[in-house]
């Protein structure tokens, strides 16, 4: 039971990042590596906000705002100028942006390359579930993830902007011809997807009790594994894939120890899925 809860929390730390990434891929078809940079910025702003106020909730709001802003800036300053370029151009730009974000953050005059401690008090209880316990930090991760996923689902299904996102993602030109403000749909997708990345950064910081400038390294590619597993561009797919991956990792480690590094497990699963089901677990095969 404890392992199941650990896996659930771990999956939650994956899911917010992956969903935002998948939304952005869905609308722009860009391999947005710098998404992990947005995540790191979110974590650091959350860290600073927590340092000022001691509140993980203020940290969350700060991290999400910083995420939305930096994600939107990356779009407005970079991708928007590259929309007509071959697809490797925005990819390289994205890798460059990610490296710049990390290296700037790690400068001694900014945040430094040391891992910084963030031992928070989320103000939540320790909950017992069937003999297992959920720590306050884990509960924070679970609550934040559930609330944000719910809000996203409502936004997608019940709001005009959600409709415009879906329309633009399915066919940008047709959506534009039908009166959808494509520009607004793309920019807002970036803002919302990046706010989720910022939230992911803050929840991971709380859960791992620290931030550091290169915390986005592993997530930068692991989020892609989840997005590809879930079916590129889908939104529900990555949610399920994130939890599938977290449970698979936890089960393997619980029963066999660290027979191979955690991130290798992710890629192993990816390879197997791509062989058996090239369109991902939930993607539709393209004609």
């Amino acid at each position, binding site marked *: 039971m404890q392992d199941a809860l650990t896996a659930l929390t*771990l999956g939650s730390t994956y899911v917010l990042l992956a969903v935002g990434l998948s939304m952005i891929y869905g609308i722009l078809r860009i391999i947005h590596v710098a998404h992990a940079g947005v995540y790191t910025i979110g974590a650091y702003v959350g860290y600073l906000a927590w340092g000022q106020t001691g509140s993980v909730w203020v940290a969350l709001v700060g991290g999400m705002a910083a995420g939305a802003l930096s994600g939107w800036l990356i779009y407005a300053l970079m991708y928007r100028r590259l929309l007509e370029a071959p697809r490797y151009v925005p990819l390289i730009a994205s890798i460059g942006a990610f490296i710049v974000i990390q290296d700037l953050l790690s400068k001694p005059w900014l945040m430094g390359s040391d*891992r910084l401690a963030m031992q928070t008090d989320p103000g939540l209880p320790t909950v017992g579930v069937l003999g297992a316990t959920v720590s306050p930090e884990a509960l924070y991760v679970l609550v934040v993830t559930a609330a944000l996923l719910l809000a996203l689902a409502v936004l997608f299904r019940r709001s005009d902007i959600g409709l415009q996102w879906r329309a633009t993602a399915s066919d940008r030109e047709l959506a534009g011809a039908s009166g959808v403000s494509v520009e607004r749909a793309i920019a807002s997708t970036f803002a919302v997807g990046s706010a989720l990345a910022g939230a992911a950064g803050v929840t991971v910081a709380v859960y791992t009790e620290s931030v550091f400038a290169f915390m986005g390294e592993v997530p930068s590619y692991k989020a892609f594994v989840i997005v590809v597993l879930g079916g590129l561009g889908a939104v529900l797919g990555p949610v399920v894939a994130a939890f599938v991956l977290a449970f698979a990792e936890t089960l393997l480690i619980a029963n066999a120890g660290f027979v191979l590094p955690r991130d290798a497990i992710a890629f192993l699963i990816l390879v197997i899925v791509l062989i058996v089901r090239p369109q991902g677990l939930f993607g539709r095969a393209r004609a």
Partner: protein
Amino acid sequence: MSTPSAVRLQRSRRSSRPPAIVTAAAALLALGLAACGGEDSGAGGGGTYKIGIFAPTTGFAASDGKSAVNSAKLAVEKVNAAGGVQGKELKLVVYDDASKPDQAATIAQKLVRQDNVDIAVSGSYSAQTRAAAPIFARSNKVMIAAYAVDPEITQVGEQIWRIGELASVQGKVAGKLALDNLKGKKVAILYVDNDFGTGLTKAFRDYVKQNGGQIVSDSKYPLEEKDFRTVLGGIKAKSPDVLYAPGYYNNAADIANQAAELGLKAQIVGVEGYDSPKLIDLAGKNAEGIIFTTELDRDSSNPAVKDFLSGYEKKTGVKADAVGAETYDAVLLAAEALKRAGGTDAKKLVEGLKEVKALEGSVTGITGFSPQRNGIREGLAQVVKGGDFHRYATFRDPSLITPP
């Protein structure tokens, strides 16, 4: 030793940065930096002795590298303030190896041929030190390794010496600590999967088995791992008295935080990789009570140690660690060798080193050297208490603490 956050960083960097050109450019840049990184004394002998040192002052191990270089500078200042070695001043020639073995080899060539240093100090990890040692030995230059643990380093020639404590010694001391001092019956092991963790664990495991301890769990983890909850849950189910967890301060902080979260009661026993103020910073109150084997005794009444601790903090604004203490001693030993040799002749330097018993002013308490040129000292365990490191126990039994 190494700094885990950063190691993780380097590893993941490698795997997540596809364009080879970035790596190539970084390598070129780093080489360029190394090429102009030497702080040459310029005096070319005359009134000075030149000590070459390489350490990772950039890259993932930068905090250890800086600690090593700052401590080396402190030692040089100390020797020079006392009149130098027979009236000659010591000068440091510093290079950054960025934790890359090939770079360390290039630096070793440069220190020998270009800078023509009189003696060299490694302020770097095992892989870099292992790459550099044969070059110094072949060129008949003395090199003193500060804290690299690989036993093979000193075996390439009689020019190569070591201050640090071998894994085989430190693991045994931890075994004694676990069974006798802590009265552990059931012991769990969770170690970092590299030379450092494996070497320590082997010595610890052998000692515990031979002395009647019961090992109830024995597993390893990858260096970059951050989430130990699942394995710690498994260990908790076996209810061990002691958890021996060789690794670095970053791993240790995660293990301590998550063990507290899960309510694991076992006494955590660590290793010299824990010896950094960052451990207490990252784990806070969860670090309290952790005991680890190391070489720097914060409660020592020895004036040399007190001087080093206060001098380092004054110079850098942060507290000293074991890596720094070992590098400080390496420079002192270099000065001692020059003094005994009365010059820079390699043969005389080696003869001089063979005669060193208790190293004067030593911060890690060197009392002599073994046949394989490894430093001998009392075993030491420190405990985290009140947000600081304090002495927990010392070990004098020669069968425990004598290196090969």
